[in-house]
């Protein structure tokens, strides 16, 4: 199997409670140093406001309801775009992985389109859709399409042929073979695609919202820049970081739930 083997850690590092906290030491330390640097005047607040100022700005926006509304709008765009692009990518990945005819017909075309940076299409997309919701959804969908397509295709094509032969010998029908051998075998690779896609999803959305939007986190950041509200700009960037982390954690939870058989995910 091409799957990574589990890496066993020494017992002392394995305590789960400590593990959960360890990953936050570095981010918290950075914030602490940043706060000290701001308070002492080492970093001028015009360049970078103190974390406490950023938190205060966040609190104000939270009270006004603006923050929640903008996060919600961005979250909605990201999810819908991801769902549309992801399902189309998954469908093409399945079709081209399972059918030679389908692969011959569409793979070359898709590979060519893939080499166009999708953000380069922004001027065209604005001309087509204006700064409407559909413009953002289109860009996000296009961005997440390729990692999911490529990894689904790769996953299906690299399922151990010996297992497929075994399934056929033991009389599995095509449907059974897909459900019991091909799909579970492709799943680890599909998850790699999902995690790549989540990264691209946020990147695309930030760019699209800063260039052409009238709501959302990117729009909030651009508005703040207009009025020199640097604390709000920094706040938007931090929220993007948190949302990205959240999306990654969600995909990890899903991965754990579906790849429970995998040695790398088994409880040690």
């Amino acid at each position, binding site marked *: *199997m091409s*799957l990574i083997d589990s890496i066993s850690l020494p017992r002392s590092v394995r305590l789960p409670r400590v593990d959960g906290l360890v990953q936050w030491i570095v981010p918290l330390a950075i914030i602490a140093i940043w706060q000290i640097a701001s308070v002492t005047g080492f970093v001028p607040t015009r360049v970078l406001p103190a974390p406490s100022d950023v938190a205060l700005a966040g609190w104000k926006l939270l009270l006004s309801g603006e923050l929640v509304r903008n996060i919600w709008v961005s979250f909605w765009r990201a999810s819908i775009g991801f769902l549309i692009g992801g399902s189309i990518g998954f469908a093409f990945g399945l079709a081209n992985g399972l059918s030679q005819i389908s692969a011959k017909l569409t793979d070359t075309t898709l590979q060519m389109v893939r080499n166009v940076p999708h953000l380069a299409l922004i001027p065209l997309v604005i001309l087509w859709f204006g700064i409407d919701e559909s413009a953002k959804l289109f860009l996000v969908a296009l961005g997440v399409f390729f990692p999911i397509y490529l990894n689904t295709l790769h996953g299906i094509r690299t399922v151990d042929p*010996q*297992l497929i*032969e*075994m*399934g056929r*010998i*033991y*009389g*599995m029908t095509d449907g059974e073979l897909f459900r*019991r*051998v091909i799909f*579970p*075998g492709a799943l680890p690779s599909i998850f790699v695609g999902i995690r790549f896609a989540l990264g691209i999803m946020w990147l695309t959305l930030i760019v699209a919202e800063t260039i052409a939007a009238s709501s959302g986190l990117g729009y909030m950041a651009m508005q703040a820049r207009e009025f020199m509200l640097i604390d709000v700009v920094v706040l938007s960037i931090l929220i993007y970081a948190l949302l990205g982390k959240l999306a990654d954690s969600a995909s990890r939870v899903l991965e754990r739930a579906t790849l429970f*058989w*995998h*040695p790398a995910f*088994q409880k040690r």
Partner: protein
Amino acid sequence: MQTALRTSLPETELASPANFAPHARVVREERPIHTSGLPLSIRGLRKSFGDNEVLRGIDLHIPAGQFVAIVGKSGCGKSTLLRLIAGLDKIDAGSVSFGQDIQPEDIRVMFQEPRLLPWARVLANVEVGLGRDRASKDAHARAEKALTEVGLADKRDQWPSVLSGGQKQRVALGRALVSRPRVLAFDEPLGALDALTRISMQRLLERVWRDQGFTAILVTHDVAEAVALADRVLVIEEGRIAHDVVVNVARPRQRGSAELAGLEGSILSHLLSADDRT
């Protein structure tokens, strides 16, 4: 030494059934009394891959319930022969017949790799072997029975990844046995195991063969394994059956006995002398 050896005869006297008549009788007595196995007749079997002619006309009859080992150097076509018998590859010319209509579940193959589904627990992996009966009500019970036969009943809820190599191969054996096959084809099933595990697996194979009485065809590169397990050893050279040796040694066989060692030695010397000629 009482065991007469065909391999000690000149090559012109190859594989003529008449040569084996006295031994064939004894072999028949050794076979399980209630055999569920199928007899197997192969006529003029040929197979090529591109320009490479792997099998150049194999004629062979295997009586029901016999344990046949096929040995030969790598690339001699022994695995190809097994795959053709099991119906895994297409036959170019000739025929393989079992004397009656057979169901897919009647013939099972065990490979060198266990080929277990990593995402299915041990019991579910054995159930795969039921073929079309997978959905039947007694599927669980039958799989558990097969697992007990290979001595792994306590591992039923484990993932394959936590089993040792020998245990995985035993699960694969359980999966092959669960449909009560009438012909079981082994393609070097013990090739990847360590020496001690091999010996205990050989005993297990012999025991299930005696209990169930299927026709067993074992491809192996280990001549000692072939003479320890089989009623009959076929030596394949350059796509043909070069020697057909009856192993006329009573079971249970004592591993390392002079009789088996003598047989092994003469088969090996034949394999090696063929090497010298080329």
